[in-house]
């Protein structure tokens, strides 16, 4: 199968009403399987904007170039939002939705959705209305739904930010499991989580990529003063 990766960003910039949210960013994401790229940085440094720009949720200036045409590349991606978005339908219909959009016939889509539900411990909730789920269940559903199309790359924007300890552990385990076969790009403000699962780090500051590198080296000895200060827990401005 031809890969949508590598992804190249060249001077990519995201603006809203003239204000730069993130950029200009030059960054490459290689095709290596199972990598976990963690995007870290203080609040307002542009983590969410970077992910949205890569995924193409907002039109960016500069270049966001996939190895495939944009439309095909989009089909190989999935995104998990910080505040999970669920359709006002049953859990089953939510899981089947991405498949139905791709033209999978209803019985086949529902059968796959049931399998996916079993994998994610959602079987007992299949008939329930998705908006009535708890926070942890909702995020689990969002992740299961994102992965049902077996995307090549998964963007996750602080997927555990609104969750308690046990739900965080559960989602994190699912993400690590998914990362076996899917390239994972995750934004987080939780340094413990970043250390646990990152294989590569992108450190953002003031909307710009301040430092990148393999996780081990970054956490052992960051090259820039700002990254070192951020890791120490200092307030970085």
């Amino acid at each position, binding site marked *: 199968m031809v890969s949508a990766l590598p992804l190249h960003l060249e001077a990519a910039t995201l603006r809203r009403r003239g204000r730069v949210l993130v950029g200009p960013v030059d960054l490459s994401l290689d095709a290596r399987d199972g990598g976990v790229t963690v995007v870290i940085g203080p609040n307002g440094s542009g983590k969410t904007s970077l992910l949205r720009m890569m995924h193409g*949720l907002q039109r960016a200036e500069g270049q966001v170039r996939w190895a495939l045409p944009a439309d095909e590349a989009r089909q190989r*991606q999935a995104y998990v939002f910080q505040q999970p*978005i669920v*359709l*006002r339908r049953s859990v089953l219909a939510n899981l089947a939705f991405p498949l139905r959009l791709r033209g999978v016939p209803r019985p086949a889509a529902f059968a796959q959705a049931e399998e996916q539900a079993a994998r994610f411990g959602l079987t007992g909730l299949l008939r329930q*209305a998705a*908006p009535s789920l708890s926070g942890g269940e909702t995020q689990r559903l969002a992740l299961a739904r994102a992965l049902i199309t077996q995307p090549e790359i998964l963007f996750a924007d602080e997927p555990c930010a609104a969750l308690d300890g046990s739900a965080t552990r559960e989602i994190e385990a699912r993400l690590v499991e998914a990362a076996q076969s899917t390239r994972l790009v995750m934004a987080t403000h939780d340094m413990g989580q970043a250390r646990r699962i990152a294989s590569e780090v992108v450190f953002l500051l003031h909307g710009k990529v301040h430092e990148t590198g393999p996780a081990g080296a970054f956490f052992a000895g960051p090259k820039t003063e700002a990254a070192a200060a951020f890791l120490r827990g200092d307030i970085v401005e």
Partner: protein
Amino acid sequence: MDDLIAGLAAAFRLIVTADPELIEISIRSLQVTLTAVAIGCLLGLPLGAWLAVRRFRWRRGVIATLNALIGLPPVVVGLVVYLMLSRSGPFGVLGLLFTPTAMIIAQVIIVTPLVASIAHQAMRELWAEYHDLLISMNATKTQRILTLLIDGRRALLLAALAGFGRAIGEVGAIMIVGGNIDGATRVLTTAIALETGRGDFALALGLGIVLIVLSLLISGASHWAMRTERQGRW
């Protein structure tokens, strides 16, 4: 007061004896209105959803026009449709004036902006909620609109009911284009207007009560069919 009591008595008598004329005009009322609302929904609901989803140059203008058209005076609509359908008008050859079809045409014009505007408002809120997800999942424009229509169906039912309410109680337009012809284009509202003019208040009131009961039945039935207020929060 006497008129009111006489009206209730008249209504009771009309219903209990299943007055054939009453049944005929009630059925015609429902036929005209339901057909007009159905066509209005077919046009208005997708239009409302489309306006919520698409961004184009004249969007604000179209929405403002739509909202202004809600206040369209039915009499004027009737007059314009009359001129269009009259013998000397552009569609005169169709011979539609003073037929139920003409009444349906007029009511579609009255109902569609209302349905589209309410649908647009509801769809806009739902679209704000679903926007990122549908873009992320690469849904096509048609799929986006369909998803909004399906998931917002309860709000759309409300739009349809508002359209029904406006159409079933409307006199001005259908009086002009229908002509209130006995046995052909007489409906409940035009019959009420006629009986009031004649001074037969009891019969007019009786017909009015039948009209109110009919519209309550329709809205109750559609709510029941859509199971509003029964499943969760939507």
